[in-house]
């Protein structure tokens, strides 16, 4: 079954299934003299969010205290869930002489307060600019603490903030998580997660990008209903939308587990909802390159055509038939299209958002006869 390689059949711009009514004028990515009300935030936010979807992980951002706090505030405000992100809390002295010691202290203190299984170490503008190498500092830390039984796994994330937005951070952090926790890094200073798979069902990797916890729960259900075992990264389904607690949980339950990272090595295929993120930033591409795992890279599945692609691929991989439940849901959606098409026909629409969300929504708008007149993203991918 592993022979289905769809990677070559997926052109990056396949989103818009049929030609738009009026051809869109594509403006070259350029820069206004000033950025006004940007709908993007910075790369470390994506990095931090990605590791909120990894089980028992804590993020340490190497930089000023404000970076961690602002990202926390932003995520807390949006998700209405606690989000703890540690900082190496630069001072003026760290900015001048380097912040390695601060980062090591931060790791020590995170281990005391949170006892995490994984510590992801991200960087910020300030640390990048003064040339801090978080990979090297982490390697030093591991060496200095060799033999300690409770030493967590580390994922260093030396991703320059100036190169992308939050969405690039999210994808690149997922790739790094796969590299460190599923495959083991090439300069292997720590072994990847090695745990037997509890569930015998064949795993499929899902890299959904930035979607809601409810979307993730739906995706898991869908993959299960296709007869496969979903491994979602990041899995925000519980960590960013959980119940009340009976006691304090320093790290909320849920997230992609070590056994799931291990299972990715045996994945039948992977699905990544992004056609815009560069190959070098893609977790699916990494698994494809290293282990030859087939992949489907597609925009966010919004609407019939894009969802058909997703479900069709999953069913091809599993050899199963579509379940009654999903067939009926598809039937009802087409019925709703028919009922509503006259209200929607010809309406002119502007869409703004992350690149792959815009592509996904555009495909849907096109399906129902709406006219996309402006599509904008704050993204920097081409």
């Amino acid at each position, binding site marked *: 079954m592993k022979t289905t390689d769809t990677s070559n059949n997926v052109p990056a711009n396949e989103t818009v299934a049929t030609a738009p009514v009026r051809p869109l004028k594509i403006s070259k990515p350029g820069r206004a003299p000033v950025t006004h009300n940007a709908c993007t935030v910075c790369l470390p936010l994506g990095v931090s969010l990605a590791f909120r979807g990894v089980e028992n992980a804590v993020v340490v951002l190497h930089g*000023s*205290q404000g970076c961690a*706090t602002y*990202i926390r505030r932003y995520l807390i405000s949006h998700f209405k869930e606690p989000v703890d992100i540690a900082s190496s809390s630069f001072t003026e002295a760290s900015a001048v002489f380097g912040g390695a010691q601060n980062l090591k202290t931060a790791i020590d203190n995170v281990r005391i307060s949170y006892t995490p299984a994984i510590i992801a170490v991200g960087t*910020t503008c300030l640390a990048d600019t003064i040339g801090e190498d978080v990979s090297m500092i982490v390697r030093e830390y591991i060496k200095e603490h060799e033999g300690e039984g409770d030493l967590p796994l580390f994922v260093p994330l030396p991703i320059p903030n100036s190169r992308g937005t939050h969405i690039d951070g999210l994808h690149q952090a997922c790739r790094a998580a796969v590299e460190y926790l599923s495959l083991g890094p090439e300069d292997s200073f720590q072994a990847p997660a090695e745990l037997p798979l509890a569930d015998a069902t064949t795993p499929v990797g899902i890299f959904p990008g930035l979607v809601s916890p409810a979307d993730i729960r739906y995706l898991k259900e869908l993959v299960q209903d296709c007869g496969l075992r979903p491994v979602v990264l990041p899995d925000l389904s519980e960590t960013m939308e959980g119940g*009340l607690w009976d006691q304090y949980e320093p790290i909320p339950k849920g997230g992609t587990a070590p056994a799931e990272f291990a299972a990715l090595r045996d994945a039948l295929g992977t699905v990544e909802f992004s056609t815009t993120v560069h190959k070098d930033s893609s977790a699916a591409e990494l698994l494809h390159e290293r282990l030859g795992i087939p992949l489907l890279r597609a925009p966010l599945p919004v609407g019939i055509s894009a969802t058909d692609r997703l479900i069709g691929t999953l069913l091809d991989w599993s050899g199963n038939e579509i379940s009654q439940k999903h067939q009926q849901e598809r039937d009802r959606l087409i019925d709703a299209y028919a009922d509503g098409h006259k209200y929607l026909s010809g309406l002119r629409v502007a869409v703004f958002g992350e690149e792959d969300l815009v592509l996904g929504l555009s495909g849907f708008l096109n399906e129902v006869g709406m006219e996309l007149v402006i599509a904008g993203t704050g993204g920097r991918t081409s």
Partner: protein
Amino acid sequence: MSKSDGVIAARAGQIYTKGNGEFALACEKASTAGAVSQRACVFCGSRVVLYPVTDAVHVVHGPVGCAAFTWDIRGAMSSGLELHRNSFSTDLRENEIIHGGEPRLEEALRHLIAKFNPKAAFVYATCIVGVIGDDVGAIAKKVTRDTGVPVIPVHSEGFRGTKKDGYRAACEALETLIGTGDTSDISPLSINILGEFNLAGEAWMIQDYYRRMGIEVVSVMTGDGRVDDIRRSHGAALNVVQCSGSMTSLAKDMERDYGIPFLRVSYFGIEDVSQALYDVADFFANEDVKRGAEKVVREELLELMPRMAPYREKLQGKSAAIYVGGAFKAFSLIKALRTIGMRVALVGSQTGNSEDYKLLEQMCDPGTVIVDDSNPVELSRFIIEKDVDLFIGGVKERPMAYKLGVAFCDHNHERKIALAGFEGMKNFAEEVYRSVCSPVWQFAPRRAGRGIPASGLHIQAEA
């Protein structure tokens, strides 16, 4: 590395329980790395203080994140222009980090000044600007000279201290405007209101009290702020400073430079707002003003007190935790909570100084925990230990309280409910009541468990 109960050794001195030995609390320190401090940075301090100046453009010179995270996040209202609610950023990227961001800043300023014709432009320096060495001052001078619009650099590089240093930088920025306006028609019975940010229209309520006392308010810094008012604020007879952490340095400088004395006040709670009005009246030693203050307090209390009684009855004996930015707000909150019959079991702040904490310690009951620059792990532990009924804090503390089944009152920059003044006290009591006495907490697992209770109904098998 030593482990004990998840408490970081370096933090031990910043936690004190009243009655446990002699009072001592370490404070005014840089945050402990890895402690997940609730503090932000220097930039944040400057940004929150200057944000409500409505007719200036606020340009964040730095990466897009710093601007996006501070875009329209305060409840500071405007009676006119709303330029302050925009997020303008030079959005520095690799190219500028290598070659310098000065040309981009200059272009941004010229563009914004041409487009919006603002009364002033504040330029906030962020971490990387401090590191790549852009000369923000030189660009500001050049653009000011060419356009006639004052461009004011704010030295708010994130790593240069704490939020408090950001307040100081913001005050210094305001000082470049103060003293440049015409003061000829200002009444001798006049004040500036400092450290009031017009959240949910609070500055308007307070201005109204002063107006009723016959006092002219020359400027509010910075709630519903106007550049021209700030320019002539040196013509006021008195500075009345709330939120002392952010604006005392400005009041001191204005005393030094213009001989304007200042008073520290708070507008939160009946006691404090009444005291504020009386103190200002006493300063002017004018019988009409004194009678005016008495009349305002009498009228407002007559209106307020009957409306408070039902809340007080319901809230009597409940306990609260307070964790806020500045300690000054904590003093008022302790008193306001007592007004509605509640006691305080935990109190802390991000940026209090040793005098603040001494005063806090005197105000608190034995057994109360006092914390400086705390974090989620500590705060949650105390919420459970003290089994509080209410938490008063900001956005970052809210989900922590809710997860543990504890009521919450938002008392930070982002709130949409006026909590200052007499009307604010009514709102505060109502807000606390609505949360503390909400029926939703009956289902909270910490008190009720997680399982579905057995129904008690059994299907009888036929005999």
